[in-house]
């Protein structure tokens, strides 16, 4: 049974302005659901790199002073090749915490391991008491990313924590981009491993297409999104409303399970985030570019540095290189993968067989490792180390290729290699991760002799694919970050680089609250069997029956049930009688409901049969007026009402009413 539902609005609170690191809170059917909690790490680009080994260059950078020579900030800010950097532990830009009370969040849905990096900030510091849902690979690899991050930052303790520069009055005086950095007061230092563990303990594992009930009101389901191991899109639905949350998704054939598009159909609202950050770069072309530049450098005796995350595209790159190195004559070149979690990452990738694409899954049954990096390791072509210290320094041989983090070039072993190799033009740094502007990442290393190549590999959906997807799944409304509703600022003529749909997408920006446009406003109501038994349906049209029902509507846990009304108890005692009349709603004798239409010609004939004469019928916009001129009476017949207008002649009115009623069905 359906009930029109006019009392509940659905809202989206937008806590992040970063389209690929989203954090939105959805108020839907009395539940509060956080969709992803991405951490914007681009704030770290304003900081000086954390060198693993003492760097004379970095430590001798001059302090920055104001134009008037005032040098009170020279301990906090350092100058390098015309750019100013904060000399402090790097800090991250958190999602908005003021827009909504985050302790009211019931659940957090995570779509992929890149979009959960702010989780400890939310779960540990906001009073959050709910549950987090994510797939197993997302949790495991997410843990690796967090572990790496914590490790990178904690192993280079920095005595100083700069805060003077954040003062609003002082920030205004700073040069760009520091001057324009937003919400600096909310920037936070990295969490601890303890906080990570605590945050991860709140996660409940889910599998693709698993249906999870939230308080009886809402069902959430993760779907494969094809972007990364265990990456998901989410369906959030009630009986009559469906929201699809599309986060990082990919239609390319890489290692993860392909994207499930069909289940996104029939959505009222589709929230679209996590599209490619480099819509003009085709990943295949970029992989080619990556390989070519790598080969050219190594052939010339140079080293190649690839700043990267410890999971994700690196698997595909290693696979490409596996096929490429022999043909390019690079078999003797060592490949090093350096990360505190390198070993776990390489091993994890091989054990999540059920989350892999079909080709890789079938390998497991042969049995073969799904990823060929196993063979690279076996043949000693790929070696992995937790850090540059220890075994690595013994094995290190040049020219070589090094994969290491962090892609921001602000912390991690990559800082060491930038310092080591930056001076020679034989070496090349190849940027493959699209999250950071490579020019900004390189700024504190200038002047730099080494070659820099930008090959961002972003396999997430591009605008052509989005357009096809939207045509296929046809949501009623699309909601997306404002960046997707206009061409990129640098290519304002590229109208193809924006979401194009009808009706136009609703856009949001950081710290905005959107009312979501739902058209269907119904609730499902159950009828108790004994009540259903008592109904007497009457067929008013073939196939359609109506019945009136008097019942009590009971609502609990967002489920609505119609129960038989309690029988009016016999008046036995004064007290009881009083109670009963309090509890039982008034059950008045209801007038019967009427249905049907009045055929005017037959009605007129009937009137004539009953002695009325001089009848005139007029057509009106909504129906007819039957004029009984003699009786000076007017019967106005419309689709949903009939009025008998006569001069105070109640007998006549009742007579006419009964004639009208003859044509209608009662129940």
């Amino acid at each position: 049974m359906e009930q029109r539902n006019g009392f509940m609005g659905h809202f989206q609170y937008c806590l992040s302005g970063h389209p690929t690191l989203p954090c939105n809170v959805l108020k839907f059917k009395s539940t509060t659901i956080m969709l992803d909690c991405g951490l914007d790490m681009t704030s770290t680009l304003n900081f000086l790199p954390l060198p693993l080994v003492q760097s004379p260059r970095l430590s001798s950078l001059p302090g920055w002073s104001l134009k008037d020579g005032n040098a009170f900030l020279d301990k906090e800010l350092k100058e390098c090749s015309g750019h100013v950097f904060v000399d402090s532990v790097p800090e991250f830009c958190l999602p908005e915490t003021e827009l909504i009370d985050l302790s009211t969040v019931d659940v957090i849905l995570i779509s992929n391991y890149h979009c959960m990096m702010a989780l400890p900030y939310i779960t540990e510091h906001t009073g959050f008491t709910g549950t987090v849902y994510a797939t197993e690979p997302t949790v495991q690899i997410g843990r690796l990313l967090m572990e790496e991050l914590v490790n990178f930052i904690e192993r280079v303790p920095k005595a100083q924590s700069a805060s003077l520069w954040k003062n609003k009055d002082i920030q205004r005086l700073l040069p760009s981009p520091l001057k324009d950095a937003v919400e600096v007061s909310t920037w936070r230092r990295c969490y601890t491993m303890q906080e990570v563990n605590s945050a991860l303990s709140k996660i409940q594992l889910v599998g693709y297409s698993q249906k999870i009930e939230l308080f009886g009101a809402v069902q959430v389901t993760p779907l494969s999104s094809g972007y990364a191991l265990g990456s998901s899109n989410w369906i959030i639905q009630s009986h009559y409303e469906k929201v699809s949350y599309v986060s990082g998704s990919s239609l390319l054939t890489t290692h993860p399970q392909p994207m499930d598009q069909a289940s996104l159909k029939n959505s009222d609202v589709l929230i679209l985030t996590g599209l490619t950050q480099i819509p003009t770069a085709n990943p295949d072309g970029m992989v080619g570019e990556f390989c070519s530049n790598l080969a050219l450098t190594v052939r010339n005796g140079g080293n190649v540095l690839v700043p990267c995350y410890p999971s994700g595209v690196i698997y595909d790159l290693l696979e490409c290189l596996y096929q490429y190195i022999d043909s390019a004559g690079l078999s003797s070149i060592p490949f090093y993968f350096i990360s505190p979690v390198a070993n776990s990452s390489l091993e994890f990738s091989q054990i999540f067989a059920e989350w892999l694409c079909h080709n890789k899954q079938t390998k497991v049954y042969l049995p073969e490792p799904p990823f060929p990096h196993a063979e690279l390791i076996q043949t000693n072509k790929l070696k992995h180390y937790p850090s540059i210290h220890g075994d690595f320094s013994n094995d290190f041989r040049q020219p070589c290729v090094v994969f290491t983090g962090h892609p921001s070039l602000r912390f991690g072993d990559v800082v060491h290699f930038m310092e080591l190799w930056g001076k020679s033009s034989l070496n090349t740094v190849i940027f493959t991760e699209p999250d950071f502007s490579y020019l900004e990442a390189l700024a504190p290393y200038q002047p730099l002799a080494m070659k820099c190549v930008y090959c961002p590999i972003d396999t997430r959906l591009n605008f052509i694919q989005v357009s096809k997807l939207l045509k296929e799944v046809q949501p009623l409304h699309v909601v997306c970050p404002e960046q997707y509703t206009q061409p990129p600022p640098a290519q304002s003529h590229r109208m193809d680089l924006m979401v194009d749909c009808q009706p136009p997408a609703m856009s949001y920006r950081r710290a905005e609250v959107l009312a979501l446009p739902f058209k269907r406003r119904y609730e499902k109501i159950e009828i108790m069997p004994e009540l259903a038994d008592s109904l007497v349906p009457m067929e008013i049209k073939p196939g359609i029956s109506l019945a009136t029902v008097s019942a009590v509507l009971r609502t609990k846990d967002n489920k609505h049930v119609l129960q038989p009304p309690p029988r009016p108890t016999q008046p036995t005692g004064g007290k009881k009688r009083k109670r009963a009349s309090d509890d039982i709603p008034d059950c008045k004798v209801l007038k019967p409901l009427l249905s049907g239409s009045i055929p005017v010609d037959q009605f007129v004939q009937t009137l004539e049969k009953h002695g009325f004469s001089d009848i005139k019928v007029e057509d009106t916009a909504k129906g007819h007026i039957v004029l009984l001129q003699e009786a000076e009476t007017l019967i106005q017949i419309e689709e949903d009402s009939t009025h008998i207008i006569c001069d105070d002649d109640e007998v006549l009115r009742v007579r006419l009413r009964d004639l009208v009623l003859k044509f209608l069905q009662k129940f």
Partner: protein
Amino acid sequence: MDPECARLLPALCAVLADPRQPVADDTCLEKLLDWFKAVTEAGSSLLLLQEHPCLVELLFHALRAQDLSPRTLSFALRLAGVFAAQENCFQHLQGDPSLFVASAAGQLLVHILDLAMREPAEGRVCPQAWDWPVCARKIVCHLEDCLRSDAAPRVTQALHVLTTTFGHCHGLWTQGLWVQLSPLVACLLEKDPMPAPHTLVDLLLSVARSSVPSSDPGLWETVAQTLSRLSPTQAGPLAAGILKLQDCPQALRIQAFNVLLQPLACVLEAATQAPATPGLLEGAAGDLMAVDTLPPSKSACVGLLCSALAHLELLQPLPQRPSPWPQAPLLAAAVTILRFCNGSAAPSSEAGGRLCTMLVGCVRVQRAALDFLGVLSQGLGPQELVTQVFAVLLEYLMSPDSSPMVLKKAFQATLRWLLSSAMPPGCCDLEPCAQLVLGELLAMLQKRLCSPCWEVRDSGLEFLTQVTRHWGGQASFRQVLLASELPELTRQLLQDPESYVRASAVAAVGQLSSWGLLAAPSSPEQPAIPQETPLEALLLILTTDSEGFPRRAVMRVFTEWLRDGHAEVAEDPERFVAQVLRAAGKDGDWEVRVQGLELALVFLERLLGPRGSSAAAPPSVTARALRALCQVQLFEFAFRSLFDCDRPVAQKSCDLLLFLRATATPPGSPQEAGDRPNVASVEAALRRWRAGEQGQPLGELAPEAILAVLRSMDLEALRDTLAKSSDHVERSPQSLLQDMLATVGVLGDNEADCY
């Protein structure tokens, strides 16, 4: 017809007429038809029909039978057409739902019409309709009915018949036919939508190419009207056809040219911020010039642009191409299209923005535009535009997003432009514009040769080979090339896992080495190990590569090296030739062996002078040459090749030996009768080879013995035998008939087995 075929024919006709016999495939019927054509061309078909009543029976049966397969019916109709081309003895039929039958019936109608009209038309300029024979009048009536019909298939069918008529029949009567039918065709133009526009275009072009225009200038008016009535996409082929005509009114040519230019003009307009550059369409058609005239759907718009580009590309080299040829605006348009496709052009209007969205990343348009741009290199352009051409080509060559196919086209177009603008007359080095791009070009090429995509490495190598072939001697090119990694990269690609790439690398190494651009590299890792020379590297490929392509490429390079006197080869040509022939002789790929013979021929020419010069070499030269040939064991190679199981090898060897015999033993040269060398052992070996026993070596041969063997061999007879295709027996009509019957016969056996 030979008696054996005549004997088999009745049985075959019976098989064809029997619907239960699953007759052979289309190819057999096609071959049979070809044979009948040959037979009727050789003699009277009336006689043929009289001598073989089974044929007439087959045709009658085909007309009556209801259950004949469309394939057989179509065959019968076409056979009838073959006979009708000579004799007037058949009635017409038409309208079968099968496409084959309808088409065959259409052709038959044309034949009949042609035949019927030939006689009355003789001697008269243009017979009037009432003079036509009944049969012709009937056919024309039928066609008129069809043209008036509302059923599109009927109109199409009639148009097809007329197109064939005007295409194949050249009698003056066709002019009368056009006079009769042109009002009906004009009526078709008025209909909305126009029925069968493509077929109508074919008809008009067919009529325009016939003798009609000389008698009916009104035709041009119809054509002009059609051109303006058709949609831009439909009008393209008509416009292109008009522009290829030798004679047609200038106004119509301008109109047609404008149709082809219109889409490009729209593109130019879409990108033009201010009307500074001259437009493509000036004057009358100028007001049509609006981006909004382009079709709104992407596929239609892309299709229109591609076809316009393709038509203009074909038109460019023709002598009758429109003049003046708007080279500069066309260049600008091609560059703009390419810029829209890679997203670097900013549109000037909203409509331009839509065009931009449609073209971005469209590989089809990119390919068409690059081809067109390449063709435009044959004309000059303002320096500023040429600079833009090179800039856009470089963008495509450097972009990681260019698909391998687009990249190949970009390489080809770049090569054409480089070569066309290479050397100003009287100048010893490259043109400044080319010099300017050279550095970037070779840096890009370096990266492309390292691409993980083999198609890219392959087209990169092809480009390098071609550029080096033309510019290997240019100082500035040599300088930039030698300073780059390219020679070393090319050398490394000889070991590429992809055989096509190895083959291209072989060709590139061949070119680089010819120009002395493959200097011995200094290997930083292993300076002690001297690298093999290019010759050694290629010989290794010839003897060890498992794929045919690289080995064939090596043979081509070696032949070229020998012809051009490559330094390493010139050191000891005999040793070189001996090595190569030894390897080629053992090669399993017949193309390698043919190429070996080509190399042997080049060697012969070096010794004896070029082929074709009838003069025989002086005896001293001959003697020296023969000694050299014996030394390199060329005869063993050539004689073995003579009995090669692959015919082209044997033919080539035969030619070579004939050349040698003509030069070394000219007719009338004295034979040392008394002192005849013993050639018995040679002849015995040759006999065994001919029998397929190739194991036996020829052993040491004296020049005299060679000459004697050459004289004794009937090389001319061998050449004639070889000239016939190896399957000449199998391809005889007799064999065809037997095969067709055998197929049925085998089925018959199977039936018997069932009982």
